[in-house]
């Protein structure tokens, strides 16, 4: 078995075991093992092409694994359809915001609640707009938003799903510091309500400030995991990012 990113409490919302997915000769997931605890904010870091986004696609059902197990909230979900995984309580964002461009900001939020979370959706959409400070663009089309506002809106859709685990794919990448602050505050508030997070991020300051534990991936597998201080002192992680000495 390849290295495992173990969560210390043993109370896991997500467990991935020996997960493989190859695209031709590219080993995007090559025996991934990791766990995410309940109410945990786990950071997922690694160089470009290390398999982080593929792991999100595998866990969320967008891509089917070649083999391996994915247990979410006690249920095996490997190979399940994306909509079925979402209905179990897993929400995700995409690396490039995947908005419903021709719909308004409010309609985007309502569409996220249209399946399974409809009662009270309008009230929750108003709350989410307030939480993310998007009230002033509520009736704008999603395609008219700035890049940062689009990231906020996509995060807002995940919030509307009332998920127990949210996968965030570079949600603060390239956004204005004010928007970054709004997102970080929202993540903290949601965690207080019992939501767990697995966060792909390149911004080490964000990783340090928000993540309880960091999981490092390289070449389609987990290299190590631990606290931020453990990770920055880990020579293997340094080699992963900077390369091995010749």
């Amino acid at each position: 078995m390849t290295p495992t990113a173990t969560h210390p409490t043993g109370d896991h919302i997500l467990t991935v075991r020996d997960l493989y997915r190859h695209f031709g000769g590219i080993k995007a997931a090559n025996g991934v093992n990791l766990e995410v605890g309940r109410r945990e904010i786990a950071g997922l870091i690694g160089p470009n092409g290390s398999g982080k986004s593929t792991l999100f696609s595998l866990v969320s059902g967008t891509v089917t694994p070649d083999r391996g197990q994915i247990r979410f909230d006690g249920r095996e979900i490997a190979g399940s359809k994306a909509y079925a995984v979402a209905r179990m309580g897993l929400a995700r964002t995409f690396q490039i915001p995947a908005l419903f461009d021709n719909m308004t900001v409010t309609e985007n939020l309502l569409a996220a609640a249209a399946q399974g979370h409809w009662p009270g959706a309008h009230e929750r959409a108003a709350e989410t707009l307030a939480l993310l400070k998007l009230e002033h663009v509520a009736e704008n089309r999603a395609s008219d938003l700035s890049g940062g506002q689009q990231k906020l809106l996509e995060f807002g859709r995940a919030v509307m799903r009332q998920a127990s685990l949210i996968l965030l794919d570079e949600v603060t990448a390239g956004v204005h510091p004010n928007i970054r602050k709004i997102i970080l505050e929202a993540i903290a508030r949601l965690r207080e309500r019992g939501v767990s997070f697995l966060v792909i991020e390149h911004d080490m300051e964000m990783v340090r400030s928000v993540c309880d534990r960091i999981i490092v991936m390289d070449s389609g597998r987990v290299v190590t995991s631990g606290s931020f201080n453990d990770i920055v002192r880990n020579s293997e992680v340094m080699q992963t990012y900077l390369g091995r000495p010749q």
Partner: protein
Amino acid sequence: MKSRWAGLVLLIAVIVLLVLLPLLVNNYWLRIATGALMWAGLACSWNMLGGYAGYINFGHSAFFGLGAYATALLMGDPLGLPFFVTIPAGMVTTAIFAVIIGAPTLRLRGAYFAIATWAFAEVLIQFATVVDFTGGIGGLGLPPFLDERFFYFAMFGAAVLTYLVTWALFERSRFGLKVKALRDHEPAAEAMGINTSLVKLQTFVLSAVTASVFGSIFAYWVTFINPKSVFGGDITDQMVVMVLLGGLGSLWGPAIGGVALFVVNRLIWMYWGDTAFYIAILGAAIVLVVLFLPNGIAGLFARRTAKSGAVLDKVVNRLVDGEGGQR
């Protein structure tokens, strides 16, 4: 708010005018109005899948034809069923065909769905041409009922119901949110828990069944049908152009496009008797709309104007690159 009230007043005025129309015009113009209502309804039925869900159906005439043949077969010898019984029978038959065709083809990406639906309509033309019970190429006659007002109000009722259902389902319900979400970004819609295959199929069936109702009324109205007159590809072509002209994915666009093009068609026929000229106008209309009016005529009056050609972009991108409507 002001424009909303103005819109409502205009809608009520149009409905009152349409109700009173048989008292105001002669039978010739009433027939033209009946045809305009039919095309407005048919264009709306095509727009349900093409405009709201972003899946181009090039075989929509198949469902119009199924409704027409259901009515012709059931009203003719030996069954002789009443007209109003044949409409639901046609709807059920069409729904069954739509599920059989839609379930596998709606999983296809890009142009494959469009090609598959086109092929389906072609198969039905050939089938209806070679088998006996459809009357073959000679077609089928129906018992004549020469009451223009009856057919006008039948088409009017069907059109009003079609637009009411479209408004309620696609503009005012969470079903409409799901449909538009999958048009704009199918993987993201799936990630929101939406079973996009099911929603597409439901939309496809609704769109097909609506077309079959107009087919049923049309068959009884014209009292004679043959494979070409009800399954012909030109019927679908006209629906597509009407929706593009009026406004793809909008509620009133198909009505505007449907009425405008049908009236142009009749005027050309009236003054020149040349239908080939109308085909040229259809082609020119497509080019002009794509170049200068990508949101259609309805886009000129929309409260929130979409980014120029945004819906058209989604639909064309899905058709060309097969990436589920993503740019």
